[in-house]
């Protein structure tokens, strides 16, 4: 079966090839279909992998040629192939919906290329058998989410939202690097499976690092704010981002590293998840915007998954992850149709323009998905929430986790009930003129929505098969069943009749002022640091400028000196030349003439003297005698 499981790589390659073709053709007409074909290919690959691995305990490993001595591995185990299938399924249906939703947009090739990149990166992250690939996938989904949230970059506030999402998740990614570093440095291998046997301090450090990464990626307390801003993107993006791809990366990562997490880390994970489930549930209850409410609800549901992990039941967490993907994406697709029709996601505006009454099928889907999320049997959410409650019963920290999860369930019911109530306005409050121009819902969108709602409805039947498939025990407890149902129903009633006081709404609407704390604790110091660094930079800059200017001045001065020296040298040379000329003239006119004169005179004198000796011996002797007498006389005188 190894050959078949290798086909799971199609899950990555399908969307990847689609990106290439979309970017190559750049055709607004064909790019949606190319993306759809890519998604179908991915789905086929994922399903083949799942079928090949069903009942096979040994995970298949696919070694890709990577760097020298560092092959890149994909791992196809029941868990990864199940997650891959969920990602492929949800992304395919969302893509189907997006074909209708994005019909009137201009930049279709860009949109579908980015969506495909998102899916491919998520598949890579899910199937990665190597820390390197996990990091690559992790970074790529951050990039893709940034691009997609900022898709309508020309609208006000969209760029800020995209940047915020990117920066928040990237900041928390630091934890992933710490965790990976701690594990890899202990085991000297980047393959995931051997690194999971680490224990002791390194495991604690790694666990806390991974928790930080998951908090950022999955919008847990205290980094939950970016997710609601991320609603600035197109609704299919939100649906994808909130269900199967971006935010799911956190629980998926923690599921993968579950063997490494030790008791104390698990308790922290559980507390973070529980507190998030509670606080963001309250936030959701207070929202006046449909999509922002769904975003807060996503944080809350991811909190449940972390809580389940913390309670020691990865099976329950996985179950909720899978079911939540279907439920939340169908809720978003429903909300997207309202947004598309009413050009607003504000509850009161939607209600004023007709709300669910104008589109009963859409409202019906929304109700089903909402009830599933709240945990009403026999819909999907009932089973997974029951599993989580049962897991907390079995946990050692039951006294802490059970109240948290029950309160969270109550809140889930409440905000779902409130949303359903707000979307079903009284007939007399609907303004007539708006109601007149309603148009039919696009077939693409309805298909996607109905299919996903169908998944959310029926996947409850898959609880047992999934448990068997991944080899995890799904906790069950009769008391949990009854308690969960009762709490959910109470919540729904509370929400429907809006029994929540305005104080809580006001407090929760502002995210419990957590953003402000974040601002004071993090943003302001960072800005201050930036300002200081900027000023230091300015100093440095002016210093460098000063040095440069001094150098220039010095150079100028040296140049001046040089030119002066040059002038002096030239002058000296000229003077020397003049002197030489003078000396030549003196030579020619003075000395030469003098010498010539002397020569002439001496010659003359010589001529005269030559006449004196006669050559006759006696005369010459006479001269000699005379000279001797002269000499004697001189001697006598000089005595």
């Amino acid at each position, binding site marked *: 079966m190894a050959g078949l499981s290798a086909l799971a790589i199609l899950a990555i390659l399908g969307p990847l090839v689609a990106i290439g073709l979309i970017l190559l053709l750049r055709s607004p007409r064909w790019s949606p279909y190319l993306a759809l074909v890519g998604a179908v290919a991915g789905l086929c690959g994922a399903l083949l992998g799942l079928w090949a691995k069903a009942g096979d305990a040994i995970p298949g490993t696919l070694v890709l040629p990577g760097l020298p001595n560092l092959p890149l591995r994909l791992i196809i185990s029941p868990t990864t192939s199940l997650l891959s299938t969920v990602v492929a399924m949800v992304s395919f249906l969302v893509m189907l919906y997006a074909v209708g939703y994005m019909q009137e947009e201009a930049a279709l090739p860009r949109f579908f290329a980015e969506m495909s990149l998102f899916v491919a990166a998520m598949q890579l992250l899910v199937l990665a058998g190597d820390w390197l690939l996990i990091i690559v996938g992790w970074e790529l989904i951050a990039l893709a989410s940034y691009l997609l949230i900022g898709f309508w970059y020309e609208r006000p506030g969209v760029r800020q939202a995209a940047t915020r999402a990117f920066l928040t998740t990237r900041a928390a990614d630091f934890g992933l690097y710490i965790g990976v570093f701690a594990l890899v440095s202990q085991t000297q291998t980047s393959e995931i499976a051997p690194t999971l046997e680490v224990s002791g301090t390194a495991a604690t450090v790694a666990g806390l690092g991974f928790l930080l990464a998951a908090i950022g990626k999955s919008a847990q307390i205290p980094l939950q704010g970016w997710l609601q801003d991320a609603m600035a993107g197109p609704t299919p993006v939100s649906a994808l981002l909130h269900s199967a791809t971006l935010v799911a990366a956190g629980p998926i990562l923690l599921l993968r590293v579950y063997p490494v997490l030790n008791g104390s880390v698990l308790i922290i994970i559980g507390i973070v998840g529980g507190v998030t489930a509670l606080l963001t549930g309250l936030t959701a209850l207070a929202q006046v915007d449909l999509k922002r409410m769904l975003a807060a609800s996503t944080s809350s549901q991811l909190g449940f998954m972390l809580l389940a992990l913390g309670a020691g039941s990865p099976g329950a967490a996985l179950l909720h992850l899978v079911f939540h993907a279907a439920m939340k994406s169908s809720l978003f697709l429903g909300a997207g149709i309202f947004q598309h029709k009413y050009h607003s996601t504000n509850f009161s505006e939607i209600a004023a323009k007709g709300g669910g009454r104008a589109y009963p099928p859409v409202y019906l889907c929304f109700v089903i998905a909402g009830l599933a999320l709240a945990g009403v049997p026999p819909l999907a959410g009932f089973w997974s929430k029951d599993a989580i409650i049962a897991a907390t019963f079995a946990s050692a920290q039951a006294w802490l986790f059970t109240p948290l999860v029950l309160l969270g369930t109550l809140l889930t019911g409440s905000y779902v009930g409130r949303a359903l109530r707000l979307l079903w306005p009284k007939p007399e409050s609907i303004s007539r003129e708006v109601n007149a121009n309603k148009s039919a819902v696009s077939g693409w969108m309805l298909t996607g929505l109905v299919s996903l709602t169908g998944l959310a409805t029926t996947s409850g039947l898959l609880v047992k098969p999934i448990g068997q498939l991944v080899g995890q025990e799904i906790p069950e407890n009769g008391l949990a069943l009854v308690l969960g149902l009762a709490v959910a129903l109470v919540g729904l009633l509370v929400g429907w009749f809006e029994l929540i006081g305005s104080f809580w709404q006001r407090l929760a609407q502002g995210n419990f002022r957590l953003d402000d704390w974040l601002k004071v604790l993090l943003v302001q110091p960072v800005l201050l640091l930036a300002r200081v660094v900027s000023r230091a930079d300015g100093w440095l800059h002016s210093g460098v400028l000063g040095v440069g200017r001094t150098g220039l001045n010095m150079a100028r001065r040296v140049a001046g000196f040089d030119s002066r020296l040059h002038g002096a040298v030239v002058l000296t040379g000229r003077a020397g030349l003049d002197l030489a000329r003078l000396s030549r003239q003196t030579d020619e006119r003075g000395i030469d003439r003098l010498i010539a004169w002397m020569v002439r005179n001496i010659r003359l004198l010589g001529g005269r003297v030559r006449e004196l000796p*006669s050559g006759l*011996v*006696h005369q010459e002797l006479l001269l000699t*005698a005379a000279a001797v007498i002269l000499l004697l006389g001189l001697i006598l005188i000089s005595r």
Partner: protein
Amino acid sequence: MITLIIALLVGAALFGIGLYGVLSQTNLVMIMMGVELMLGAALVNLVAFWRFLHPGAYSGQMFFLIIMVVMALEMVVGFGMALARFRAKGSVEMEEAVELKG
């Protein structure tokens, strides 16, 4: 006992006669004889000075012998020249030897 002054007077007289001979004669042989007389006067003076002033030193005698040798050589060269002149011109009269002027 002749005194130094007498010897010196004799030397001076000899020198005067020699000088006169040199200046007045035109014959080469006679001129050379005048030169010999002047040299003899110098020798008389030398011997007189040695005999009366430094009789114990030998250098005077040595000097005397050297001058004697120089005189002999001078004679040899002088008479050689005179003989050659005579053979060439048939005369040793210096009045005729104007070709000595270079």
